[in-house]
């Protein structure tokens, strides 16, 4: 399953809920304000790194750009995709679960 999260983890608990319920091997895509979760040196970096041992995590590049974030600021192991990559991820999985 593909899980999309669109809220900043510093404002809402959507990402926490997603990480709590996500199954091993499922894929997470961080979009909109959730792209902040992908940045290095935050209070949730350790949580993200733990999740990366069980799940692939992607982040939407155009949403990083829109917030002035550089690829170099992204936690190692998180892959940047564009909208086409988002479509590919949605196509590769039977279901897309959006966490708002």
């Amino acid at each position, binding site marked *: 399953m593909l899980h999309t999260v669109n809220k900043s983890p510093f404002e809402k608990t959507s990402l926490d809920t997603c990480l709590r319920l996500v199954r091993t091997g499922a894929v997470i895509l961080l979009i909109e304000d959730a792209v902040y979760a992908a940045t290095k040196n935050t209070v949730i970096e350790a949580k993200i790194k733990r999740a990366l041992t069980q799940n692939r995590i992607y982040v939407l590049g155009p949403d990083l750009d829109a917030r002035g974030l550089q690829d170099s600021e992204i936690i190692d192991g998180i892959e940047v995709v564009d909208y*086409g990559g988002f479509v590919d991820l*949605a196509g590769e999985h039977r279901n897309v679960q*959006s966490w708002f």
Partner: protein
Amino acid sequence: MKFGIVVNEGPYTHQASDTAYQFTRAALEKGHEIVRVFFYHDGVNNGTRLTTPPQDDRHISKRWSELAQEHDLDLVLCIAAAQRRGIVDEDEAKRHGKDANNIAPGFRISGLGQLIEASIDADSLVSFGD
């Protein structure tokens, strides 16, 4: 691949309708089919033709209309959500005694059954909201 798209948020307040549009466009560019875009809750506000953003800003409803024309998309506004928010087509305007309609080109008003049908017809239903 057949995608169904659900948009639950209005334009200019959340990024959801922008993301939905960009996803839909990217899917079409990759040759996928969009069986329907269903606008629910505040998402129906994407479908008014009276919206007039500043010239240097994106025109969200026009952008949907153009994409619909280009790719023969089925853009459906939930009827109950649309009525609450004052979005009417010609028939609805007549039925409720309104002096005008405001639905944008390429959109149509219908019921929640269209969302269920899209979820059945599509391989995958992708929701955008807040």
